[in-house]
C-alpha cells in the first residue's frame, strides 16, 4: 500500500520504473495529488473488503 508520506524521491523512482520521464516541476505538482490519492485509497478499508474480489475478474469463457 502507498505510504501517505511519500516523498518526491520515491515518486521519481516510481516514474523511472514506469519508464515515464517527469520533470522536477511536474513531480513537485504531482506530489500533493499522489499523497491525497494514497490517503483516499487507504480510506477504502472503511468499506470492509474482507473476502471481496475485484469487480473485474478473469473469465475463461470470455477469454
Amino acid at each position, binding site marked *: 500500500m502507498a505510504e501517505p508520506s511519500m516523498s518526491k524521491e520515491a515518486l521519481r523512482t516510481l516514474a523511472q520504473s*514506469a519508464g515515464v520521464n517527469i520533470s522536477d516541476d511536474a513531480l513537485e505538482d*504531482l506530489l500533493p495529488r499522489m499523497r491525497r*490519492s494514497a490517503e*483516499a485509497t487507504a480510506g*477504502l478499508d472503511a*468499506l470492509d473488503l474482507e473476502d*471481496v474480489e*475485484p*469487480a473485474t475478474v478473469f473469465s475463461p469463457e*470470455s477469454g
Partner: protein
Amino acid sequence: MTTVSSGLVFLSISEAAELIASKKLSPVELIDAHLNRIDGADERLNSFITLLRKESLSAAREAEKAIASGGYLGPLHGIPIGLKDLYYTKGIHTTIGSKILRDFVPEFDAAVTERFKDAGAIIIGKLQMHEFAMGASSENPHDGPAHNPWDTGRVTGGSSGGSGAAVAAGLCMGALGSDTGGSVRIPAALCGIVGLKPTFGRVSRHGVYPLSWSLDTVGPMTRTVRDSALVLNTIAGHDHRDPSSSRRPSEDFTAMLDRDIRGTRVGIPREYFFDLIDPQVAEAMHKAAGVLGELGATVDEVSITALDHSLTISGTILQAEAAEVHADHLRDKPGDIGEDVRARLYQGALTLATDYIKSQRARTVFNRQIAGALERFDVLLAPTCPIGAPRIGEGSVQVGTKTVPALTLLSNLTRPFNICGVPVVSVPCGFTNSAMPIGVQIAGRPFEEATVLRVAHAYEQATDWHTRRPSL
C-alpha cells in the same frame, strides 16, 4: 432566454422524422438549414472540429431520392447527427481532441457510425471535446475551448462539450458523446439538453477511442427524452467486435415512454450528493422530486454509504486505465499533451497495482450497495452537476463556504453511476440565477433504460425546461 419551438433547426428528431416520412420536409432542406445555422453560430461556439459540408449534402440528396422512391428507413433517415471526435469515421480525421492524433484517419467506421449510416442518419460533422476525453470542461488546448450557447464566456462541460453546445444551439438534431465519468451528462446538464448514459455493454464501443476500458460508455445527447430513446434504438445491440458488448436483446426504448409513473419508487441518496453543492442546484433537484411526486411516484430517501468513496474508486480506476491507454503517448510525446490531461495521466501511470485492485474490490462493495438500493427503488434521483457552468478559465469556484477547483467539481456527482455501470439520464430541471441550465439525473437498474427514460419523459412533459433555447 427565449422560448422558441419554431424553425427547422429546433424541431425534435421525432417531429422532423414525421415530416420527412410524410414527405413534407426534404432532408436536403433540413441539412441546408443546419449548415446555415452552423455558419452563423459556430464561430462563437467552436463546437465542430470537422464539418462535413459536402458529405452531408450529398447524403441528404441520396436520402431524399431514396425516400421519394419509397425507401424510407425509419426515424433517423435524413436527420443530421454529430459525432464526438473520438468515434471512428472511415476516411475522415478523428483527432480525439488531441495534437498527437491530429492526422489520424481511421480505415473503418465505429460500430455506432455504421449503425447511424444504416439507419439513414446524416453525419454532419465531428465535434469538439476535452483532449482524450479526459476532463470535464472541453477547454481544449489545441482547438480552443468549446463555448456554452447560454453564455459564450462559460464552459460547455465535458468531455463531450462540442456535442452539448451543438445540440443545444440547433447545429445538429442529436449527437453522440461518450461517458466515462460523466462526459455525456455533464455537458448535457450545463447546456440544457438531455444526455443518456446507457448500461455498460448496451452499446458497442468498437471503433471508439478508449479512455478507460471498465468505465467507458457511448451515449446520445438530444433535446428531448424521446429523441434519446430513438437514437438508442439505433445504436444499441450486441456487437461481437466489442468484448464488453452485452448479448441481451435490444428493445424499442420508445415503447413505454408514455406510460404514467404512478407507483414508481424514487430514491434520493442521503449521502454524498448534497455535501458540496450550490443551493440553487439542490433546490432545483428537490423541486424535480416534487414534480415526480405530483405525477404519482413515491419519493423517499435512501442510504448508500459507499457513495462517499465514489471519487477514490472512480479516480483510481479511470486514471490508471487511461495511463495504460496512453502509455506510448506519455512516454514518447508528453509535451504534445495538454497540461491538465498530462498531469492526470502521470498520476495514473504512478498508481500502484495494489491501489488499482483495491479500488476494484471497493467497486464490488459499491455495486452491491447500489444494487440493494435499486431493489427497494425503481430509480435513483440526484443532481447532475453541483454547480452551473463556470466561466472559461475559472480555476476555482465558491460553493457555500468552500473554494473548490471548478473542473474536478463538475464530475463529482456523475462518477458514481459509471462505477456501477447502470443506465442514467440527465434532463434539464431549471436555471441558476446566472441563467445557466441545471440538470437532474435519473438512474435505474442495469438494462432498464426503458424505466429511466419513462420517468425522465414524464418529468419532461410536466415541465417546460426542454422547450427553452439559448438566444445565441
